[in-house]
């Protein structure tokens, strides 16, 4: 399945599943990164260590590990 790591910058996709464990999962959900919402990849740092996404108007910075746990499907 495709994760945020496989998205291109400026691409928008729909979140299918979050594979992260609690409590990270809860934190992502509380920031709007939840199943069914649209997610857009905004940016990542040079070494692709830190990623920035936008979900329902909120911008969130994440590490690679967390970004990899967000599964998406193309729309």
């Amino acid at each position, binding site marked *: 399945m495709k994760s945020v790591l496989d998205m291109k910058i400026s691409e928008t996709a729909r979140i299918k599943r979050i594979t*992260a464990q*609690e*409590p*990270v*999962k*809860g*934190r*992502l*959900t*509380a*920031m*709007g990164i*939840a*199943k*069914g*919402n649209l997610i857009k990849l*905004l*940016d*990542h*740092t*040079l*070494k692709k*260590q*830190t990623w*920035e996404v936008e*979900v*329902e*108007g*909120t*911008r*969130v*910075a*994440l*590490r690679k*590990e*967390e970004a990899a746990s967000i599964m998406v499907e193309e729309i």
Partner: protein
Amino acid sequence: MKKIKVAMVGQPNVGKSSIINSISDARLHVGNFAGVTVEKKEVLIKRGDKEIDIVDLPGIYSLNAYTPEEQVAKRYLIEEDYDILVNVVDANVLQRNLIFTMQLLDMGKKMILVVNMIDELEKAGGKIDDKRLSELLGIPVVLASAKEKRGVENIVEKILELYDAPKPKRKIYYNEKIEYEIEKLKKILLKSPHFHDPELARFYVIRLLEKDEDIYKIVHDLPIFLELHEVLGESIKRLKLEFDEDSVSDILADERNSLAKSIVMQSMIMPQKETLTDRIDKILIHPVFGLPIFLFFMWTLFQLTFQVGSIPMEYIDQVFTNFGDWLKNILPQGDLNSVITEGVVPAVGAIVMFLPNILILFLGINLLEQTGYMARAAFLLDGFLKKFGLQGKAFIPLVSGFGCTVPAYMAARTLKNPKDRLITMLVLGFMNCSARLPVYVLLIAAFFPAHNAGNVLFVIYIGGALLGLLVAKILRELLFKGEPEPFVMEMPPYRFPSLKALAMELWIKAKIFIKKAGTFIAAAAMIVWFLSSYPKNPELLAEYEARIEAAVSESQKKALYNELAAKELESSYLGKIGKFIEPVFEPLGFDWRLSVATISGLAAKEVIVSTLATLYAVGEADETSSTLRAKLAQSVDFKTAVALIVIIMIYSPCVAAMSTFYAEIPQWAWRGFYTVYPNVLAWLAAFTVYKILEFVGL
């Protein structure tokens, strides 16, 4: 008259503190990033004959509190007694905020929804129907803008109304399968004689279904616990099966998300896509240019701090000198005259002189906080910080450390993992605080060429930061094995701070600084003056007076005067103390005066300057070297000055900061470690630098 107790609660950075400021004369700290407020603060307001006690809480993303400062808010919500909940939400991200609102509605308290930042939403072309929203949620809704002071009085009115009115009926229910299980569990809980309130029981049941340990602890001691526990387990199993999810939290999160979506759909017109933030971000967090731009900003800040800050310095100095001379003439002769005109006034003057530098530095930090660039810098530096065993979010306390170490220790509460937090706090002292700025500016001006001054200052600050990171790395390797916490951080939109707000912040900072100089530092200077003037030594005086009498030339007389003053100082209490500690600092080239000044810096870092001013004021009759700077340049050599700078960069922060650390970290072992290691490290580093400079012949 009854006091109405109101709790302000909401997700981080929605403007809770701003709202309170706008309806009271409080000056709560606000800033454009998540986690500005880390401790609850109470503000009292009066309207007519009613008193309202408003409690500002740290922002909290959800009731599954994650970081220590969120825990503060959660504990307050669950344990404390209050009449009304005011839930503040950000109009721009209403849907996400409503998910948390739904959790709060579960609590079944009297509640008001404040939709803040309505100005931004409307500017972007969005709209919210407050009547519809109120109908859907079943609670009063106020549209507000703390920035434009719009609708804020409405909040107070609604609070007063709701206080007298009965509790409105619940409107929001979950999927009937969930409600069925809730109902069943609620009945068991209500069997317990401790429970009368069905709304509270419902809330506890929902939290228990979500495996909330804080609630678990509360019900654990109830007699019906065993029965409850069994049925709870069955309910959870059943729900997980029916909804095909991993946990009831997930089911409820999904439920709330859908509810929020549908409510937003019915009550809000979405704004056009806002792009200003995206456009700025294209440059400021550019994968390649982002970091250099950040470094350039920091460099500029330190250049300005030194160069622009130095311009008014001489005027301020002149004002204090004149003031001292004037006082000398009007006060009666004697000890009082001396302690004020020779002890306090020059010492306070020596510090107030640096007010412009400090204000520029604070302006920089303030811009960083208010514009939203703080979160960007954290984003840019995360990869770098990770190498040192820290995470991007640690940047926020680290940067606050450039202002003052005390709030920086508090800000470390935004780090979830206790190890991350402790490591960050242990190295925070290496972030040079603004109180150290006067010492650096003084020493740099005395020992470095003027055109390089700003750069030297930059190197000191960056050097401190790098050293902090290095120590963090070592601590991580040696003592705290394990990965740092995952990094998930909200990036707020850019906001342009109003000039008025910036000026206000600076004015407050200036007031605090002058107050500190006029009280704490003046008192410290007075103590230093007394310790350095007593005991009087009549024999020494008599001996020298005779010799001065006998001297033939003017210059000989002058030399004898200086010798006398130096000897008197040495035989004072402070001189004796200095002589006693001198051996510790001798390998660094310090004489007893520098040693005493260094130790006095533990009271407050500015005191180093005032102590130097007192100790070097004596014994110099040479007209051309009237300023402290010139006297230092004359009597201290370069490598000693650098060693002093290194010591100040590394050794323990002031007592105020240390007591904050002790308050935040309860373990004695860590307190002890924290108290000792910076001083040892400081000495070793200063010694190394001193020897290297000696070796290269400086």
